[in-house]
């Protein structure tokens, strides 16, 4: 028989062990958790299909479309983070463009002024966005509905004014130029094909993280808060804390995306981080379906493509964009995918019932 471990004995740790554990913890964020039940469901067959399609897509697409997919991937990262806050926790944010901008400006300032490597700036961007989100989220997340929407929108506007006015730090309206390409250990992502794999690689890692999160206790808590805050509080959930946490997390996602954005466009200027971007990202989440992780990514690809196509109509682009936005909201308020799926399932089941009915009749 194996000797039982003596509780009183002192365990010796080495620094290496702690580093190893930290690494394991980081990996465990991305890898499926083996202790979860329904392990088989974590990665489905369709996921392999999606990843394969992503890997092979640049073979089919031409140059500009690959660049468009890079942008779509960046917006998809923001949409994924916002999906946790908006789709799962049921809160409203019209200020995520500000966190995106904070990420972009952190990277731009650190790499151009202080010669920090892009990889470190990447981490710093997420950290900066998360800290800002914590400071702003702590007071305003007790608001609901219209007031939360307005407060986050107000934060976005304040951010824009600060960026425009603090010229010595951010370069004012013209912004910062010459942000270096993203590079890891001397390997620079300097073509749009390499950037494509970089952005979508980051996105896949974040999707796995988000999937883990959604299936964890935290994810269930988010759903409970979205369903009813009073009920969630009555079963012992610290509602305020949960909201702040998910806000910080989604802001960190937006910060990462902003950092990639600055590296890909090699510039950061305030035009890109206004209310327009916030509205676009929220539209991605709505179109993808609330409480859904894959939907916002598809919606990000679709809406990025749509804005690019509409850009060809010159001055007519924005009115048409607004009309399409309203029509999508009127006809697909639960998201395009969700609504179509429901209809499809209804039709199939109707067809099945019909066949069964006919069989019974005979």
């Amino acid at each position, binding site marked *: 028989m194996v000797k039982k471990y003596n509780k009183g004995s002192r365990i010796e740790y080495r620094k290496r062990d702690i580093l190893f554990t930290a690494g394991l913890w980081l990996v465990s964020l991305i890898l499926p958790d083996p202790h979860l039940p329904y392990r088989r469901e974590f990665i489905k067959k369709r996921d392999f299909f999606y990843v394969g399609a992503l890997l092979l897509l640049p073979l089919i697409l031409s140059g500009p479309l690959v660049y468009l997919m890079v942008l779509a991937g960046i917006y998809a990262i923001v949409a994924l983070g916002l999906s946790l806050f*908006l789709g799962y926790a049921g809160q*409203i944010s*019209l200020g995520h463009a500000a966190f995106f901008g904070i990420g972009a400006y952190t990277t731009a300032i650190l790499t151009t002024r202080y010669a920090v490597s892009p990889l470190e700036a990447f981490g710093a961007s997420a950290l900066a966005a998360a800290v800002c989100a914590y400071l702003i989220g702590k*007071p*305003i997340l*007790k*608001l*609901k*509905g*219209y*007031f939360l*929407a*307005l*407060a986050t*929108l*107000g*934060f976005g*506007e*304040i951010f824009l*004014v*600060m960026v*425009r*006015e603090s010229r010595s730090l951010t370069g004012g309206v013209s912004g910062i130029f010459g942000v270096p390409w993203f590079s890891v250990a001397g390997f620079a992502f300097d073509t749009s094909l390499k950037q494509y794999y970089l952005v979508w690689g980051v996105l896949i890692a974040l999707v796995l993280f988000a999937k883990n999160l959604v299936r964890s206790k935290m994810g269930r808590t988010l759903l409970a808060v979205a369903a009813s805050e009073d009920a969630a509080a009555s079963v012992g959930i610290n509602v305020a804390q949960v909201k702040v946490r998910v806000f910080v997390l989604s802001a960190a996602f937006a910060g990462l995306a902003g950092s990639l954005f600055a590296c890909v466009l090699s510039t950061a200027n305030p035009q890109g981080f206004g*209310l327009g971007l916030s*509205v676009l990202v*929220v*539209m991605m989440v*709505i179109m993808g379906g609330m409480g859904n992780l894959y939907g916002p990514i598809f919606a990000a690809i679709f809406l990025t493509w749509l804005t690019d196509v509409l850009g060809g109509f010159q*001055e*007519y682009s*924005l*009115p048409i*964009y*607004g*009309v399409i*936005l*309203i029509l999508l*909201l*009127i006809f697909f*308020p639960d998201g395009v995918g969700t609504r179509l799926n429901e209809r499809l399932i209804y039709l199939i089941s109707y067809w099945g019932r019909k066949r069964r009915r006919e069989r019974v009749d005979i």
Partner: protein
Amino acid sequence: MNPWIHIPQLLAAGITMGAIYALVALGFVIIVRASQILNFAQGEFVMLGGVVTFFFITGAGLPYPLAALAAVLAVIVIGFLLHLLVVYPLRKASVLILIMATVGASIVISNTSALLFGTLPKALPPFSGDLPLELGGIRIVPQNLWVLGATFLLFFVLYFLSHRTLVGKAMEASSTDPLGADLSGIARNFMVFLAFGVSAGVGAIAGVLVTPIFYTSYNAGTLLGLKGFIAAVVGGWGKNSGAVLGGFVLGVVESTSIAFIPAGYKDAVAFVVLLLILYFRPKGILGSPYIDSRRW
């Protein structure tokens, strides 16, 4: 340099600005009193009021008062259309969907107006000359007095409408107790329809009054609408008196802040005021019938 010597002049400017914010805020309150809907396109009504008047004067050659009247009527029709095409189909949708739909409507309205009337800022002649009056060392443009007078007149008209007429009371009932309103035979959707018209009218009047003082361009509506909403929240959400008080408070604070901080930060002041009031007194200065003081 002593910043305090500019304070009286800035106060005068702030009160004018406050009157404009109050008019925009009243537009928000009218709709909220009828339906708990927040119309993010409210600022566009203000912009349209100025731009369409300009178009009627220069394009159609109408005299000034007639052009202003025609513009207000046109904007009221646009308000009705906004309800019929955007808000009515979404009457059962969630808050988020309505916000996004009205934001979409505001994108459509402002950019269509840019297409139709051009992107250049428009300026109208003042109602009664632009010779400034001297009042104890402060210079006041007569148009400012027009704006102030119109604000108070509209405030009293709206007060009368909502407290002394059957339609106004029906509007309020359909917001505070939808089921009760239905049971007593109030056509709730029609009330919201009317509210959108009245709100668009108030917005358009504000636009006509503002354009002689500031240049109105196609993209001026968004920021003006946001500040009007902030004014309505600061004063007390859903109250006419709160909207007017909030407008003046916001205008004065924003204007006097110029004396102490760089002018570029002026637009951020309103949002800082908003965050402070939402944190410390969410129901606004005068209190709000729609917001529970504990949580909402």
